[in-house]
């Protein structure tokens, strides 16, 4: 007879007791046939796992603790009764003896567990019986939850996902196997699940659940479930999907806010047009009288040395008339205007006549770098509004910094014309940049910004066939509008 490996293996496989060999940190190394059959596994399946996924996490924790004890104390451990969950879901109790195996240096290298099933329930501790009952109950609940038509999560007391309803899996396009491995906290976005669970039986609106790329928005109702009258087993989370509804609501909200703004703009427009008209006549008189002086009395002015004084008054009236014109064009809804060819310098002049005063007041230096005076086929007042908005954003951001400046720059390459609004800020953090064009997104204090400015800007620019973006390759905060050159 040959006493080789196979010989001993055959003997171990013939034994009805379950034999499991583990290495350090409970890593599974080998098991005999009787053990493998309970778990529906092959020896290969054992590789690299710590313990069976069929087991209750509490049980697994206990196995690992026991293994550790054997390694640390280098002594045999006699466990009077120990539960094992077989792969068919049934739970069985065993009397297990864990024995350390030493290497030549007397160091523990393996632990061998030999388990014999306890068939007589009287031998099992009362607490274990309770556990058995509990296990059966959870199993029943698990099947029950799985069949629910409502997206539902079934959690144990530690917030591990025990199961989810098919409706939940379908909603988030995930399979149960992947879902149970996920940390529940990571599923919920911007939601303090811990708090919700501790308050229980509470419906929470606008909860976002995300698995991979699938996002669902809805309300969540949480209710605890009990093992017996005073032992909480965990929580049931019922989810009502409102993703579509929510999107609709958000669209409506956006429209409503835009409508308010457009209403405000409308009354501002009427007001400005009124003021503009009232100012225009006296302005025309002042300006006209100056023209008379210049034209008819040029010689007298020259004699008195007043020519340059008159010129500066004339210059000032021109500025007033520019402001009035810009104010009138900025405040009206131009979205129905015809597109016209306009020099970019004219648009920028309009913008600057409205902002220069404010910039000076706030000691913000203004640089103009007009490298290219291209024409844009545009609705000038809309474009003015966009650039004004970019400048105002810059002013809000940098006005309190030590040496604030804003630069307006135009330039071109082979394909495109560009207008950049650059400020002394040091760029926009990536997480803000990602969301900056979203409606309602604002970093300004409550009441300061609507969060709609850039959203409207980007829409206007896109309606003009242009593209508005943050140029993050620049050291300073740079918003750039790009227009494709016409094919001519």
């Amino acid at each position, binding site marked *: 007879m040959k006493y080789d490996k196979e010989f001993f293996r055959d003997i171990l496989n013939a034994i009805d007791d379950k034999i499991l060999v583990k290495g350090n940190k409970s890593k599974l190394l080998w098991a005999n046939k009787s053990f493998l059959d309970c778990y529906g596994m092959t020896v290969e399946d054992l590789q690299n796992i710590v313990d069976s996924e069929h087991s209750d996490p509490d049980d697994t924790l206990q196995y690992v603790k026991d293994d550790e004890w054997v390694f640390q104390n280098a002594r045999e451990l006699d466990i009077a009764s120990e539960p094992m969950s077989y792969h068919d879901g049934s739970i069985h109790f065993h009397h297990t003896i864990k024995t350390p195996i030493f290497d030549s240096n007397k160091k523990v290298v393996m632990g061998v567990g030999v388990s014999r099933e306890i068939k007589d329930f009287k031998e099992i501790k009362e607490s274990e019986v309770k556990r058995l009952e509990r296990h059966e109950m959870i199993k029943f609940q698990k099947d029950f939850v799985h069949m629910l038509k409502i997206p539902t999560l079934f959690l144990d007391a530690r917030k591990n996902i025990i199961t989810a309803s098919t409706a939940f899996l379908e909603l988030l396009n995930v399979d149960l196997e992947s879902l149970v491995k996920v940390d529940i906290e990571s599923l919920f976005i911007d939601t303090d699940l811990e708090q919700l669970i501790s308050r229980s039986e509470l419906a929470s609106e606008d909860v976002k659940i995300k698995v991979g790329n699938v996002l669902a928005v809805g309300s969540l109702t949480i209710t605890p479930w009990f093992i017996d009258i005073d032992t909480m087993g965990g929580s049931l989370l019922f989810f009502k999907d409102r993703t579509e509804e929510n999107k609709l609501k958000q669209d409506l909200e956006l429209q409503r806010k835009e409508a308010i703004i457009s209403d405000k703009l409308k009354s501002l427009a009427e007001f400005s*047009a009124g003021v503009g*008209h009232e100012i225009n*006549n006296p302005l*025309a*008189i002042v300006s006209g009288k100056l023209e008379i002086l210049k*034209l008819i009395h040029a010689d007298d002015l020259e004699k008195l040395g007043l020519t340059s004084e008159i010129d500066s008054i004339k210059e000032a*009236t021109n500025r007033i008339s520019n402001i009035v014109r810009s104010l*009138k064009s900025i405040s009206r809804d*131009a979205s129905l205007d015809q597109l016209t060819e306009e020099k970019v310098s004219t648009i920028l002049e309009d913008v600057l006549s409205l902002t220069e005063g404010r910039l000076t007041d706030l000691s913000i230096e203004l640089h103009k770098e007009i490298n290219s005076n291209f024409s844009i086929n545009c609705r000038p007042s809309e474009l003015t509004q966009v650039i004004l908005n970019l400048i105002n954003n810059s002013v809000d951001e940098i006005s309190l910094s030590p040496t604030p400046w804003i630069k307006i720059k135009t330039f071109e390459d082979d394909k495109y014309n560009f207008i950049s609004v650059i400020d002394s800020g040091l760029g926009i953090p990536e997480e803000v940049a990602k969301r900056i064009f979203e409606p309602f997104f604002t970093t300004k204090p409550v009441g300061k910004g609507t969060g709609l400015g850039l959203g409207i800007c980007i829409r206007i620019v896109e309606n003009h066939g242009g593209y508005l973006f943050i140029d993050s390759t620049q050291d300073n905060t740079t918003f750039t509008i790009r227009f494709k050159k016409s094919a001519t």
Partner: protein
Amino acid sequence: MKILIIEDEPQLLNIYEKMLSFKGHEITTFLEPEKAIARLEDEFDLIITDKKMPKVSGLEIVEKSQKTSPDRPIFLITGDSTDTYEFCHGKSRIMKKPIVFDDLFKYIDDLGK
């Protein structure tokens, strides 16, 4: 050139009159547009009118003048910066208020060409 000027603001009317007389034009002025209507059939070479006026607007002047003398140019002075009008055919023009007299003189010179 014989020019009819209609403007309800006396000071402005005075300015237009002075400037254009100085340039050697023969000027007729009206503060009240309704009175000017009766004179539209006269042989003016050019009509300069404000747009927004009481009782009769500049647009009505334009309309009536085009009926009687379709080819006669009209300069409409408007305070509304976004006004653009279909009527601007031929040598007629829209001028933004306050008007730039250098432009006005140039446009009038252009008419003689």
